[in-house]
């Protein structure tokens, strides 16, 4: 391995900005075009619930993803979580065409935050399922309640190592 490559990777690993910083590394993981097409293709399903995402909105959400990932110090690979978020929440009674993009952007923030807060001990699907249940149920469409109450309790229990959260759940345990 040349000294130049070693140095680049060193800075990458040690989180220094001299040669390659986190943005550049994140950029290498980005597959924006794939993610964009995937999000547009979600319309085939979401339009049944009166929701369609435009190319501009999809690009906006991808840009939001970049900022949120940087803020939460996470790296995403593959198609990412956005398509799953669209599929999961498109049939929510609290989402409609006018508020869809803003809500999905916030849900995305909350999702990454709680992946960190749960110490990555919960899978994407488990977290999304819980978020959807709570959002449509106890939270009655309130993102604040979802973020600051429901998920706060959820993450606390995961950190405590409660067995319920290894793929099994009990209703009412976290409210």
């Amino acid at each position, binding site marked *: *391995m*040349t000294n130049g490559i070693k140095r680049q990777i060193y800075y990458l690993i040690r989180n220094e900005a001299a040669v390659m910083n986190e943005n550049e590394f994140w950029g290498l993981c980005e597959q924006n075009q794939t993610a964009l097409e995937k999000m547009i293709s979600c319309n085939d399903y979401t339009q049944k619930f009166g929701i369609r995402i435009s190319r501009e909105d999809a690009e906006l959400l991808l840009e939001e993803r970049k900022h949120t990932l940087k803020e939460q110090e996470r*790296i*995403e*690979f593959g198609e990412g979580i956005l398509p*799953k978020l669209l599929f999961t929440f498109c049939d929510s009674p609290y989402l409609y065409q006018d508020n869809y993009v803003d809500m999905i952007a916030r849900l995305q923030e909350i999702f990454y935050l709680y*992946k960190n807060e749960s110490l*990555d001990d919960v899978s994407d699907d488990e977290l999304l399922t819980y978020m959807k249940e709570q959002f449509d149920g106890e939270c009655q469409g309130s993102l604040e309640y979802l973020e600051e109450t429901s998920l706060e309790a959820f993450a606390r229990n995961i950190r405590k190592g409660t067995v319920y959260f290894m793929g099994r759940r009990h209703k009412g345990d976290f409210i």
Partner: protein
Amino acid sequence: MISFEIEELMPVFTKLTTKYTSNESSSVSYEKAKQLMEAILFCIQELERNNPVDDAVMDKNLSPEDCYQMGYQLVVKKVQSAMKRYHAISSQFKWYRNLALHDTILKGMPKFFQYYDPLFAPQDQILTLDYPTLVPVQELKGIDAIYQYLIYIEMEQQFLSNFSEEYVENALESYHPEHEELFVNIPSVVLQHLIYEQFQEELEEKIKEGRETLEVFLSGIIRVFVREKLQDDKLMYGYLKNSIKDFIFEISES
């Protein structure tokens, strides 16, 4: 020399990360990403370390994935070799009531083999290796550090087997009454004891003649010992010679 652009390593990184998350997570923390990238680099560097001048490896135009996989296999083999070496050492292991040696080898090493993760964290050494060998292994990482450390311990046990347990423990007792709790290298102490015991007068003369003369004198004693008792093992001589600088330091301090 193996050389890849960082972009070429990304597919290897993505594949390893997907495996790490069991495909159940589309993202990982920066910290975890760094750990996994370090794991990849460690394996590729393992391949380099084991093929420093092997043109056959270079000529094959191996992909980053190939280099990583080959390096990973070398890491796994090294773990297996280390485990065999450990079993051989531990079967007749003597710790001479030195707690650091006991805890590092008899308590620590089994934990290393239990918890070492060659796939997702081959660069992690896990153990602090408190018992000091004559040559430190701090610059090595992961299984490389442990493997080399076990080689040194094996050499030390072989050297010490030329003395009775009583002799070694007396040497340690003469060195310091609380030797059991000291982080001290046992062969170093035994060699010093042997030299004081058998070459006291010559030693005192050589001390007066200066450091260089003293070094040559002490090297000569070690060389004779290795030739007569240890089949003139060059590696053993090279290893034991590292005790000289500490010996000279202690003479100068006393």
